């Protein structure tokens, strides 16, 4: 079974959490380390203080004893003469000092000859009872007792090492011995006071900072004078004693230099503890130690650890929650950015498609009778401006349009209008009828209420006749001797109302006149102060171009662009800037042949026609194959007129004029029959099979294919068909 793959988002989330956790734990660890040090320092200071205080207390307690006894020394002297009274002395001492365990007066051997060698009055306390008796005997020879010997030899008082009571091994005693002297200054006896070291315990076990802490009091030889009872770990005490007395062990010294510190580990339950011990001058040679257990010392720290852990955990939960949320947000952002980029790239593609739909100037560059230049500077977003032009049958079809809005919707509508323009102008030359067709489609299913301003023009190149129709668009300018707006009925833009009747206007362009078309991207071009370029400025520029005699299409457009650029001065372009300049430049033809023939609309007249054509082609020295082609084309054209122009059985004339210049021959066919445009007939399908082929429709087809161009105009109630062919070169 495959392990599910973690998305990179989840992985990075986990990484962040782990890093955060690690950081938090690290910080927590550092804090705890610091806290631990602080606690140890405090402990050290507290321990030291405790040891000092307690050692002073011990000293005072000891001094209480020694002082009490010194005060009695006169009594000892007094009663020296009365040996039996010494029993009472010991008894009185015991009665007055409830904390004494025993008191003895060990006479110097043979001091009282009558008493024998050894004489030791002794009082003992057993619980509540005090017993007095003579302790010495040959079995119990105190003169051999080291304490006695040391006291006697050193002639000084001292505290003994601790020892266990013979009668009760649980009891630890310590003896204070001091010599007493008679009136002669000779040592008379050694007095010994036995003390149960528990008496020191009350001092030592009061005032502990930590519940399980305890003190140890050690003799000069490192033996325990006092250790507390109760639930103290005796094993630990042995271990501690060993460590204290081990001279090879390396112990730390406190900051003050007085206290020795070491730590130990309980062998059984591995509890850790620390020992601070001190040999103060006050109780020299005794040492005092305080034992603390780490679990109590560091209890607050451990509490803190747990608290920290909990806080860390909560913090991590919150963090992971935040991360989750922001991860969602980031991925949303990421999505949105991706979508935006996608849209941007789609817009770019749309823009490229839009630009590629525009005609290239080389489509009409070869013509010498017109000069057309168009220019579209798109705004940031793909827009709804369009211009188009092409020549069909010696007529220049052109249009300019502006769809409401911007972006893809506008571009789509414009694309549809463009396609429609091309398709209606394939068989229609009346701009009003074309506009009507466009409007019908624009109004269908126009839920978005997109509308487009549009201007269509059809310029008949042989005659200069301009037919046009306007649908709400900015009126073009005509630049000739002067600058004037073309006279056009505005109508409504496309897509507004489906019952608009579009009408056509006509004018004739004179030689070298230029028609300047534009969209509101030109007049509404804004500069930084939000001022518009305006129609007046456009007119000004056009007027200047007349003065400078520079209104050829290319120059005109360039000049206008420069003026707008200067005006706008870098401000952002908000709309497509579209311009189209159409200059009519018919060239003078040098006619070298012209003949006219008039025929009746009868098939039999074809013979006369063919002879007429033959005479022209011979006169021009045309080669046979070409001449025959021309003959066929003309025959077909005339046959068409004979067949269709006049209603059945009516008589009518057909006039044929043959005109030629040095390179081209032209046939002009005029009849006054019904309005019939052969150029609008759809092309015959030459790929059909025998069975599918209709018997007709070849006439116009042949004319188109054999001649270079055909052109039809309805002028003054007559059909005028022109056919042209290049015969030289």
């Amino acid at each position, binding site marked *: 079974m495959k392990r599910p793959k973690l998305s990179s988002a989840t992985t990075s989330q986990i990484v962040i959490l782990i890093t955060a956790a690690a950081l938090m734990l690290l910080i927590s660890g550092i804090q705890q380390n610091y806290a631990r040090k602080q606690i140890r320092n405090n402990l050290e200071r507290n321990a030291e203080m405790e040891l000092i205080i307690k050692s002073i207390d011990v000293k005072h307690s000891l001094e209480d004893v020694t002082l009490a006894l010194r005060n009695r020394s006169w009594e000892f002297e007094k009663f020296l003469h009365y040996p039996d009274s010494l029993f009472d002395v010991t008894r009185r001492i015991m009665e007055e000092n409830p904390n004494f365990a025993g008191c003895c007066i060990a006479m110097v051997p043979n001091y009282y000859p009558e008493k024998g060698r050894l004489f030791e009055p002794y009082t003992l306390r057993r619980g509540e009872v005090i017993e007095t008796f003579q302790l010495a005997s040959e079995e119990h020879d105190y003169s051999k007792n080291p304490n006695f010997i040391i006291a006697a030899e050193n002639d000084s008082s001292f505290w003994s090492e601790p020892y266990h009571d013979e009668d009760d091994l649980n009891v630890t005693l310590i003896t204070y011995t001091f010599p007493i002297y008679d009136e002669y200054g000779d040592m008379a006896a050694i007095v010994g006071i036995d003390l149960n070291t528990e008496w020191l315990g009350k001092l030592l076990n009061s005032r502990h900072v930590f519940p399980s802490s305890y003190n140890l009091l050690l003799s000069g030889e490192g033996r325990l004078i006092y250790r507390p009872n109760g639930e103290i770990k005796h094993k630990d005490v042995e271990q501690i004693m060993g460590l204290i007395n081990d001279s090879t062990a390396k112990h730390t010294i406190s900051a003050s230099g007085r206290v020795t510190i070491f730590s130990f580990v309980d062998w059984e339950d591995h509890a850790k503890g620390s020992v601070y011990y001190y040999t103060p001058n006050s109780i020299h040679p005794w040492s005092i130690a305080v034992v603390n257990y780490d679990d109590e010392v560091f209890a607050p720290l451990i509490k803190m650890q747990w608290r920290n852990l909990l806080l860390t955990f909560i913090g991590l939960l919150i963090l992971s929650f935040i991360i989750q949320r922001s991860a969602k947000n980031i991925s949303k952002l990421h999505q949105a950015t991706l979508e935006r980029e996608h849209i941007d790239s789609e817009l770019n593609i749309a823009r490229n498609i839009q630009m590629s739909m525009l005609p290239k100037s080389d489509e009409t560059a070869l013509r010498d009778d017109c000069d057309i230049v168009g220019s579209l500077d798109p705004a940031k977003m793909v827009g709804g401006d369009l211009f188009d032009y092409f020549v069909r049958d010696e007529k220049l079809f052109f249009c300019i349009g502006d769809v409401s809005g911007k972006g893809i919707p506008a571009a789509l509508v414009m694309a549809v209008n463009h396609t429609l323009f091309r398709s209606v102008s394939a068989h229609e030359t009346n701009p009003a009828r074309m506009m009507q067709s466009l409007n019908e489609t624009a109004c269908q299913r126009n839920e978005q209420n997109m509308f487009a301003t549009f201007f269509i023009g059809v310029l008949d190149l042989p005659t200069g006749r301009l037919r046009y129709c306007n649908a709400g668009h900015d009126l073009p300018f005509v630049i000739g001797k002067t600058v004037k707006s073309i006279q056009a009925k505005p109508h409504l833009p496309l897509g507004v109302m489906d019952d608009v009747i579009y009408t056509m206007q006509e004018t004739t362009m004179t030689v070298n006149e230029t028609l300047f078309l534009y969209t509101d991207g030109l007049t509404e071009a804004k500069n930084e102060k939000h001022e518009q370029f305006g129609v007046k400025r456009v007119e000004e520029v056009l007027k200047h171009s007349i003065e400078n005699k520079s209104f050829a299409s290319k120059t005109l457009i360039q000049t206008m662009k420069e003026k707008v650029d200067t005006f706008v001065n870098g401000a952002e372009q908000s709309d497509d800037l579209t311009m189209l300049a159409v200059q009519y430049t018919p060239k003078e033809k040098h006619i070298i042949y012209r003949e006219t023939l008039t025929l009746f609309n009868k098939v039999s007249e074809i013979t006369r026609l*063919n002879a007429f054509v033959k005479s022209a082609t011979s006169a021009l020295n045309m080669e046979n194959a070409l001449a025959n082609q021309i003959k066929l084309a003309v025959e077909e054209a005339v046959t068409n007129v004979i067949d269709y122009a006049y209603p059945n059985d009516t008589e009518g004339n057909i006039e044929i004029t043959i005109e030629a210049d040095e390179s081209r021959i032209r046939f002009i066919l005029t009849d006054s029959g019904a309005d019939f445009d052969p150029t609008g007939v759809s092309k015959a399908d030459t*790929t059909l099979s*025998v069975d599918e*082929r209709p018997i*007709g429709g070849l006439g116009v*087809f*042949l004319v188109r294919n054999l001649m270079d161009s055909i052109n039809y105009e309805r002028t003054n109630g007559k059909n005028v068909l022109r056919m042209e062919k290049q015969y030289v070169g």
Partner: protein
Amino acid sequence: MNTNITEKDGKYTVSLEGELDTAHALEVEQAMQPLHELSGKDITIDCAKLDYIASSGLRILLGLLKSAKAKGNKVVLKDLNDEIKEVFKMTGFIDIFDIE
């Protein structure tokens, strides 16, 4: 414009001489009329001396081809000159007729 119909080797041969323009179309059509009624034999149209053909002429040939085909007979055009061949190419007739 001369139109001669002969029967040879079990085939009908039509020879067209001259220019088959619109003016002469009617008379040629009438001359070819018998072929529409006859059947059972293939038709060869000898165009060696045909100088010119207009669309009305093409129409006549097409009509002949259709009626012959309907009867299961073939129509073959022979010896078209180059110019006429061009016209046939232009109009696509070159694909529907058998040309020799």
